[in-house]
């Protein structure tokens, strides 16, 4: 059976950390100090997460992320990134968090090249139905990760898992949003940060989150033109966000940064416009212009009061959605908090989810930012040590107490920011017209979903709508459309988006090349589409 046997292995580790961002790195440092074996798994080729986006190893980048904003996170990265006793697994995607099977060795036999009808399969099948295996209810303890690494798929068993998958940008659907050149502001920043490459010439940034100020500043520094920075908030509200006294007192650093940025933008002649939203992108093959419209005081868009900016890139910046698919796939209890990142994992004081030894940290518990993520990572690590019996309760409490204090300060700041950076209620529904693509993977327009809802009034959930219309069935697995689909359904049914639910997450949570899954070398070329 050769190579196939190594693909599905019985490897076990103490603690698997999913995500090498601030939370994962901070947790790895704590666990390592206590002599616990740590495996860190991340999709990127290097540690740091989206916040740091390290340049590729063979790049030399002068003045990499000089801003003070990044100091703490950079320190966390430097503390562990060169440690050889951590098992780093980069360019690796966790496809699922599974309950370990009692039948692993039998199954390794059963799925070999000999074909499925071997005696081993029959005996496996019989055992599966007749033998009472070890307790596999929630709370059984160990987990099995289905991982796609650079050389194929394998399983890794972990006594505890820390899930710190971070977040991604909340997409806004509007006419033209699928044109090349419409990006997330954070994605634009990713290019600038990791490669000092500016993906465009003339930018419009539009949204509700102050990140767009940082991106505008970084773009200017990198030599790009910024045509406008557009906030949905009215001026007073935006300034409240930027100058909130609580924020000012406790978070001098962040505040200082934004006021400097505003000054630099003003000096560069970049208009900062308040109380407007992006409403369309136009261009023959790619973005050529952005149209913004005024939001009147009642929160509705006035399509008669518009401005048009010529540009070749639009950065949309409406905050973040937690990457919740693995937590949902694992079956962890979730709750919905719109302004804090959508679907979030419930957890106890030690950041343990509803599933035994599945801990959660970083934005999956609430999108509170990188500094808070560091503290969550530290607390979760102590919680894991406690759960694995490496620390008694008292020792754990005292070890975590400083991190808890810092976290509670940071979360108060984050909560203010979340409230103030929230796009106006109902904006997402207003920017979409009937023929706006809602699900870009499957090319489904908003109107199509609405007609299906009208014709099938028993469709109440996002999953039922997906099954009926294919919305969310494509390559992105609903990450891009899920939030907007839920809003459209909720609106049609007169309920809240959380009653509609997220799409069910299933392993594999991301598409996998068949070549990474099959046991024989596939030589034929990809069929033409």
């Amino acid at each position, binding site marked *: 059976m050769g190579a196939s046997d190594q693909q599905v292995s019985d490897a076990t580790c103490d603690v698997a950390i999913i995500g090498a961002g601030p939370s994962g790195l901070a947790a790895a440092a704590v666990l390592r100090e206590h002599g616990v074996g740590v495996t860190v798994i991340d999709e990127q080729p290097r540690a740091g997460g989206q916040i740091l986006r390290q340049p590729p190893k063979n790049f030399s980048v002068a003045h990499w992320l000089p801003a003070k904003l990044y100091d703490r996170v950079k320190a966390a990265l430097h503390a562990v990134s060169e440690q050889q006793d951590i098992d780093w697994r980069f360019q690796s995607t966790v496809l699922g968090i599974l309950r370990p099977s009692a039948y692993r060795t039998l199954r390794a036999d059963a799925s070999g090249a000999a074909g*499925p009808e071997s005696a081993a399969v029959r005996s496996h099948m019989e055992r599966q139905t007749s033998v009472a295996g070890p307790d596999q209810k929630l709370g059984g303890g160990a987990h099995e990760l289905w991982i796609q690494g650079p050389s194929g798929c394998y399983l890794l068993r972990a006594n505890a898992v820390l899930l710190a998958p971070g977040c991604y940008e909340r997409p806004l659907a509007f006419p033209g949003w699928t044109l090349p050149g419409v990006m997330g502001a954070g994605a634009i920043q990713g290019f600038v940060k990791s490669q000092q490459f500016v993906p465009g010439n003339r930018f419009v940034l539009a949204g509700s989150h102050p990140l767009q100020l940082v991106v505008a500043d970084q773009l200017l520094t990198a030599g790009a033109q910024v045509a406008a920075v557009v906030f949905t908030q009215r001026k007073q509200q935006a300034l409240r966000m930027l100058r909130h006294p609580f924020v000012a007192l406790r978070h001098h650093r962040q505040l200082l940064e934004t006021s400097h940025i505003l000054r630099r933008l003003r000096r560069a002649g970049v208009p900062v416009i308040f109380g407007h939203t992006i409403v369309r992108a136009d261009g023959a093959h790619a973005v050529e212009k952005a149209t913004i419209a005024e939001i009147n005081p009642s929160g509705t868009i006035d399509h008669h009061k518009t401005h048009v900016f010529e540009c070749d890139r639009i950065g949309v910046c409406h905050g973040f959605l937690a990457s919740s698919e693995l937590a949902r796939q694992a079956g962890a209890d979730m709750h919905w908090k719109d302004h804090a990142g959508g679907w979030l994992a419930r957890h106890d004081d030690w950041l343990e989810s509803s599933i035994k030894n599945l801990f959660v940290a970083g934005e999956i518990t609430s999108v509170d930012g990188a500094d808070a993520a560091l503290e969550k990572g530290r607390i979760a690590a102590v919680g894991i040590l406690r759960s694995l019996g490496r620390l008694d309760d008292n020792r754990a409490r005292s070890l975590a107490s400083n991190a808890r204090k810092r976290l509670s300060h940071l979360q108060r700041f984050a909560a203010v920011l979340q409230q103030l950076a929230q796009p106006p209620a109902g904006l997402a529904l207003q920017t979409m017209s009937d023929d706006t693509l809602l699900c870009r993977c499957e090319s489904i327009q908003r109107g199509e979903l609405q007609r299906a809802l009208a014709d099938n009034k*028993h469709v109440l959930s996002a*999953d039922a709508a997906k099954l009926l219309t294919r919305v969310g069935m494509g390559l992105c697995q609903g990450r891009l459309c899920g939030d907007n689909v839920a809003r459209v359904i909720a609106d049609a049914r007169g309920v809240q988006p959380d009653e509609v639910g997220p799409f069910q997450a299933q392993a594999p949570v991301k598409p996998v090349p068949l070549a990474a899954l099959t046991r024989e070398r596939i030589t034929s070329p990809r069929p033409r589409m």
Partner: protein
Amino acid sequence: MKPVNVVVLGGGLVGCAAAYYLARRGAGVLLVEQGDLNREASGRNAGSLHFQLEYRLIRYGDELAAQFAQIIPLSLVALEDWRGLEAELRADLEVGMHGGLIVAESDADVALLERRQALQEKWGLASQLLSAAEVRRMAPYLAESVIAAGYFPHEGHANPRLVAPAFARRAEELGVTIQSQTRVTGLMRDGAQWVVTVVDRSGRAREVIADAVLNAAGAWAGEIGALAHLHLPIFAVPLSMNVIERAAPLIPHLVQHASQRLTLKQVAAGNVLVGGGWPSRFSREGSAMSTQRRADPVVENVMANLTLAARLVPAIGGLHLLRSWTGITGITTDQMPLLGAVPEAPGFFVAAGGAAFTHGPTYARLVSELILEGRPSVSIDLYSPARFSHINNFMASV
């Protein structure tokens, strides 16, 4: 609202179709579904329209295969039903009946195909055994390893996402009341009638009086049976399905394997669906297996299923697996459907088990005829729950 003559339990394909056929014959129908319509096996199965004997029916030796072959007469009725279904429901169900191939890769496979074909002929299904060259001509996308195939020109597939909802829409037009996210908590016989207790999503309970109850709950039919103090020998099994990203049209047929678990087809959107009865794993709930909590994929099974698919159709090897999911289906102890009246509980009918996608519309049509006319237009005695009277004889309360 019409008085309720029949309460249909289960909003899958069989339940939605039965509600439609019952209403078309004038009955007042209430359909109750614990979750959402079409969300379990009916919407999650592979969508195969297979009329030849499936591998699961012939793998346990000639004697059992001969017994299981009794399903073929029903398959032949189902074939005709599917031909007319899109017109009947005025809906595009993506029905494509362009032929099915059961492929052989070894002499043993060919021998199995020959025995399968003999059984099929005996029951009136005329399939052909294709040579390697004929297979190559008909299905150039298949690998060189295929040396023969059993071919039946009317097999194919339909889209499971669309069929039950189309029945539900037409049923509602005919006055059927559909209550989803509603559980049944009681089934009591009161003289000639049934008292059905239902609890809606807000927790409100109410009692519905009906002349008849149709249990169309699929893998959950046993639980519904238990509410009426009956044993229905149907077991929930978690089967995994895989969908591969879109590709240009390549595979017009339903492809199965003579001696391994595989169904493979390309749907209208271009995606390739791969299944064939590979198990996922239920999660536990105490000493029992839970059909409510998520079932985990068995990674090795997913890999083996896809390995087999990519071996037979090498062109898909460069594509991505998009998703895998689990459908929970109900298998009876003897693999035959449970279709008809339960003699020990007058007014209690079952339509579940077996190949309930291919046969679903037919189960629904025939059982609705049985309920309303007292006898179906095609005999379904072979599949009657009466064959388990030796159990329910000890359960009947009256």
